[in-house]
Structures are given as C-alpha cells and as structure tokens.
C-alpha cells in the first residue's frame, strides 16, 4: 500500500547528512494497517506524513532522494490535488485547517473540489452524518465549536471524500480528554472499514488498542518497532527512557508522587473570593466562592472543555473588565489594573506574545518597562543575559523569536515575565503536543519559577505533567470549583476519578455535556459581537 524505499529528505536546498530530516528511510505499510509514528520533536515523523500526502516536497520544498509509492502513485511526482483524491489529511491545529466558515461546507469541501456529482455528495454526506452522529454539528459556524468538535468535522470531511489512506499529524494535541476519546472512536471505525492510517503522535495511550505497530523514530530513522505484544510489556520507565509518553493512564498513576521541597514560603499568595462573571443572561460562566493560590507552589486547574478554565484565568489576571471579584494578595486587595501589572498569561498560541526582533531584545523590552527612566542598555543587558541563561536560551539570544520552536517560544515568553518581575504566572495548556522529554522540561521550568517564590497556575489536562510537577489541584466544572486538594499519594485517586469520569463515562451523556460547552461558546460569541458592535 505505502512503501518508502531508501528515502532521504532535507528541507534545505542542499542535501547533506547533517540537515537530512529523513535518511535512508524504509517503510512498508499494508492495506488496513494502523501505524503510529512517534518519537521526540524533530525526529522526522511529521515529514513522513507529509511525504505520503505529498505536501513535501510539493508545498514544503526540499530535496528528496529514494522512492515513495502510495497506492501505486508517486505523491512527489504528481499534483497535490491528485494525491488528495486518495490520501486524506488531518492536522494538529483545528483552528487553521478550515477553509470554510460553516461546518457543512467544510465537510463537503474536498468532494466539491474534486468536482464530484452533487447527488453523490449529498448521499455520502447523509451517510456520514448518521454514521458519526453529528446532526447537531451541521450548519454551524466553525468559530462556535470546541477543538474536539472541529477535529470531528475534519474527520467527517475525510469520511465524505472516502480517502483510502489517512494521514494524521498529531491530531490530539489541541484536544481535551473528551475530544481524544471521540477521536479514538473515529480511528476504530476507520480501522474496521479497512482504511490505512498513518498517525504521527506523542500521546500513545489512546492508540494502544487500535495501533498495529508503533514506530519509534530518532534522527530520521526508525529506532524501534513496538508491536502489539510489546505495548503491554513495556514499563513506564522504559518508555520514558526513550523520551516517550506512556501507553496507559492507569500506569502513569501507578508511580508514587514525589513531593517537591518548598524552599520559600514568605511571599503572599492570592486569595480569590466571590468571583462572578457571565457572558449572557443565562448562566454564570464563572462563579467561585473561595479559593487560594499559594505562592511558591504550582497549582493545576483541570476541567472539561467549556468549564471556564481560560475564562477564569482571564478574570484572575484582570483581563475581563466585567468580572466581579475580590482578590487579596496577602492581606491587601488588588485591583484589576494591579493584577495585569503583576501577572502574565502564557497563551497556547505564544506567537502573539512576542514583539522584539531577537530573544535578548524580548527580555530587554520587559526590563525597559520595569526600570522606566532608570533603564540603561549596557547595565541591564547583563541581567537579561542572566535570565536567558536561567531559561537555557543564552545560546540563541540573537535569533528572531518567531523563528524558534514552540517550546523555545514558550520559554522566551516566560523569560520576559521573569524580567518584568511578575508574581503570578499562568500557563494555558503549555504541554499540548509535546513529547515526554519536552514535557519534563516545561515541568522543570515551572518548578524553577515556583522556587523563585512565584505563584504558578497551569491549565492542563496533561496527566503526566500534573503527576510529575503539580502541588495543588483545582477542579472546575461549569464555572464552579468542585474540588480542590493537595496532590499526594493519598489524594491522587481523586484526580484519577475525575479523569476516569471524563474519559470513560462521558460517551453516554456526551450530548448534554457538549451542549453546555457549546452554549457557553455561543454566549461568548454573541457577547463579543455585542461588544464589537
């Protein structure tokens, strides 16, 4: 079905052994197999997918050697739209893979492009709608949908086009646990239909039951092949040694939690009481009675998609002008303006937070704001370099922030927050789409910040991150705090129960939960519209 014969690829114009993303790569995939390709970032797994759907070298240009065959075609030698008739692709960011504004057009988009007969498209659409149970998702604006719903639409679009081969590039990285569970259902369905799937992915637990083979790549070659029987035998330590995420959530919970030594406790934490915020008249998006964030500790904020995690974060750091709240830092009440000055939100999409033309300049910007008139370029450059060294960025201090990798960008943003002396640092899904090694790095950065006495709040559904770094957990549901505890060996079952409920039991009340999430989304959407009008 798919064969790679001695394939080498490099994105540069000259191909040398040093800059090859793939070198002498061989692969043979049979019809109906589900192949998962994993490995650390930059190992070349995305490129394998791109070579199958033809994006490399047709769109992402580079030098290709060797031979690729997909269903008797050579994707590198034909036009992309010819390859698209056979190969369907799903990308990691649901936000950027839609061409249309409404869902129905998006689902039929590929067929329309191929010039398929309208009657045939209609029939296929009906089939897919009943098959995937997406009646409630039809004819909606894509901007109202959650990440999981968007990814579902992307899957439907491929199902309507009836692609024989499906390439997925980290499809779960922007999904919550519910979305991942839905995705797993789709993959199972496709496997049953005999489609061939190639999935490049970090998260492995949801693929354990469906994958025929897991290929571990390193530096452009296959380093290890894990088959069905090995998946059950590999221990979590062996996986982590390879820089991989674990195959099961249960196993991740099996290890004991290492309590972090708390060095400093002098700084005052934040105390939030009576926080209320709503988008519309219907429901309070946020309704929090009483909650504390301790300084020098890492607090995780977990909850369903649409539970109001990001909204809470925005209220907390003073961005939501309309929220009603009383927030104390230590014993003094802090206003919204003070909170904006004192906090920093590292967004999922860090690109929008970088302004300067070099990494060093980014930190200098913050220092300039901090010192105002007392700022002196030559004196404070030393301070900036120190901060960069702390964040392990001193080697790339002259690069443009936009040209860095996602993880590096995140660290640059954090470095600028340190320079500005921010006390409250909030991270929104910092490890979505990161492999084990990079996840640990992010965890270490958070620990470092906590040791500096800062208050850290991390919004996440990354269980491995929570288990390895977090001190306290806050569970949010429908804008209310339902649980809040210190994470220890004794309390970790609570966290497990919480995730267990999300991943295992929601299929039955799938619809009601989605409804709540989408009502909130819709209200947010209309609220925005009202403001902007």
């Amino acid at each position, binding site marked *: 079905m798919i064969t790679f014969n001695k394939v080498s690829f490099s994105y540069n114009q000259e191909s040398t052994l040093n800059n090859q993303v793939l070198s002498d790569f061989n692969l043979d995939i049979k019809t109906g197999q589900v192949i998962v390709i994993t490995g650390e970032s930059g190992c070349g797994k995305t490129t394998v997918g791109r070579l199958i759907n033809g994006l490399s070298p047709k769109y992402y240009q580079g030098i290709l050697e060797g031979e690729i065959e997909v269903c008797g075609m050579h994707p590198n030698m034909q036009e992309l739209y010819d390859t698209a008739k056979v190969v369907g692709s799903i990308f990691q960011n649901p936000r950027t893979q839609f061409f249309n504004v409404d869902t129905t057009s998006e689902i039929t988009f590929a067929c329309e492009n191929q010039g398929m007969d309208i009657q045939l498209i209609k029939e296929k659409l009906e089939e897919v709608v009943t098959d995937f149970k997406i009646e409630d998702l039809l004819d909606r604006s894509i901007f109202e949908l959650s990440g999981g719903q968007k990814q579902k639409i992307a899957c439907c679009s491929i199902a309507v086009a009836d692609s024989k081969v499906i390439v997925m590039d980290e499809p779960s990285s922007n999904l919550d646990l519910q979305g991942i569970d839905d995705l797993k259902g789709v993959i199972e369905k496709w496997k049953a239909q005999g489609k061939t799937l190639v999935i490049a992915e970090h998260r492995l637990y949801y693929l354990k039951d469906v994958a025929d083979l897991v290929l571990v790549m390193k530096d452009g070659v296959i380093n290890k092949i894990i088959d069905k029987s090995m998946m059950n035998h590999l221990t979590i330590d062996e996986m982590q040694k390879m820089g991989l995420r674990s195959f099961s959530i249960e196993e991740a919970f099996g290890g004991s939690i290492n309590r972090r030594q708390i060095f400093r406790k002098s700084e005052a934490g934040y105390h939030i009481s009576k926080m209320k915020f709503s988008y519309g008249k219907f429901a309070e998006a946020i309704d929090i009675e009483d909650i504390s964030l301790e300084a020098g500790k890492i607090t995780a904020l977990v909850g369903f998609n649409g539970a109001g995690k990001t909204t809470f974060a925005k209220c907390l750091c003073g961005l939501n002008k309309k929220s009603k709240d009383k927030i104390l830092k230590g014993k003094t009440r802090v206003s919204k303006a003070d909170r904006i000055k004192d906090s920093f939100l590292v967004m999922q999409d860090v690109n929008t937070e970088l302004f300067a*033309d070099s990494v060093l300049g980014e930190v200098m910007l913050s220092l300039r704001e901090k010192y105002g008139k007392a700022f002196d370029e030559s004196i404070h450059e030393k301070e900036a370099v120190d901060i960069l060294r702390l964040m392990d960025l001193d080697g790339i201090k002259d690069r*443009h922030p936009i*040209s860095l990798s996602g993880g590096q960008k995140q660290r640059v943003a954090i470095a600028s927050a340190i320079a500005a002396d921010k006390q409250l640092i909030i991270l929104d899904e910092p490890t979505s789409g990161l492999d084990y090694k990079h996840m640990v790095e992010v965890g270490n950065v958070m620990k470092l910040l906590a040791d500096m006495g800062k208050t850290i709040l991390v919004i996440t559904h990354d269980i491995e991150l929570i288990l390895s770094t977090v001190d306290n957990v806050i569970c949010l549901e429908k804008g209310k705090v339902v649980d809040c505890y210190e994470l220890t060996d004794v309390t970790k079952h609570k966290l497990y129960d919480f995730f267990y409920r999300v991943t295992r039991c929601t299929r039955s009340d799938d619809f009601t939960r989605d409804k709540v999430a989408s009502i909130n989304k819709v209200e947010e959407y209309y609220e925005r519209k009202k403001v902007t009008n």
Partner: protein
Amino acid sequence: MKEKKLQTKDLIMAGVFAVLYVALICIMASLTGMFIPVYLILPLIAGIVLGPVYTLYISKVPKMGAVLILSVLAGFVMSASSIVVLLYVVVLGVIAQIILTKTNYSTSGIRISYIIFACATEGPFLSLFFAREGFLNTCAQYYGQEYADKIDAVTPIWVLFVQIAIALIGGFIGGRIGMGMNAKHFKKAGIA
C-alpha cells in the same frame, strides 16, 4: 525576480493580506473616529500603518496580478458606501501592478508602487465628493442657487487634493517603514 503564475497558496495569501489590510483600516477608524480632525488625516496614517502589510505581501507573492487581487478585495470592502470606490481602488491597483512589473520588483519599485496604492484609503472620502455634485444640484433646485453656493463655499473641494497629497506622503513613509520592517523582522524570522 522571475514572475510565475499565481498558485493556490498565493491566492490564499492574497485573501489573508486583504483581511489584514481591511482590518487595520477598521481598527484605525475606530481608534481615530472620535476625533474628527484626526479622521480627516486618516489617509496619511493609513498610508504609514499599512506600509508593512503591502511590502510583506509583495515580498511573499511577487507575481503578476497579486496587487490587482488585493485591490479588488480591499476595494470591495471599502466600497461599503459606494461602488465607485471599487473602481477607483482597482485603477490604483492596475497602476501599482504596472509599476511593479516594469521595475522588476526592485526595492524602489515596490516603494513607488506603494505610494500610488496608498491613495486607495482615500476611496471612502472620494465617494463623498462624488455625492457632493449630485447633492448640490438638488439643493439648487429645491432651495435655490444661493443656498447651493453657500454650501459649496463651506465644503471646499481642495480638502480632497490635500488628502490625496498626504496619502502620497503616507505611502512614501509607509513603504520605507515596510521595507525596514521586512529586513528587521520578517526576513530574520524566516517568513518573508
């Protein structure tokens, strides 16, 4: 620089830059809208602010027809008050495209073409002056020539020429800033 036919990815890029162009005009109008005197020099401000959008677009899509597409799309949205604006902006787009092709997309060529294209933001004001003639005619018929003359006197047409002049100046400065920003940021970041 070799000109090739526009490919699908170039067309998508064209759409994206048209949005940037229009969105920034909207943002500027909302920021300056409260102060009418500032609003009148909007062509100058817009010329400066939109410079980087134009230059980055040209360096991303240095192909025949790219500016024309931008002018059609931006012209369409700006023509909210009258379809005449679309024609005006498209004419500017054609001129800018000719300059670009003749100068072979050299730095000075891009800047000169932008000076012309910067006049596009004058479009919405232009429609007011088109309407002025018709308005004065009816005024003369209904309220007498004297009244129409008075109105004529208090709404001087030279404002239009001043606006076009400052738009040209805005285009000059904006093109310079745009090229500078390309070198400082976008080339370094690897996106230009």
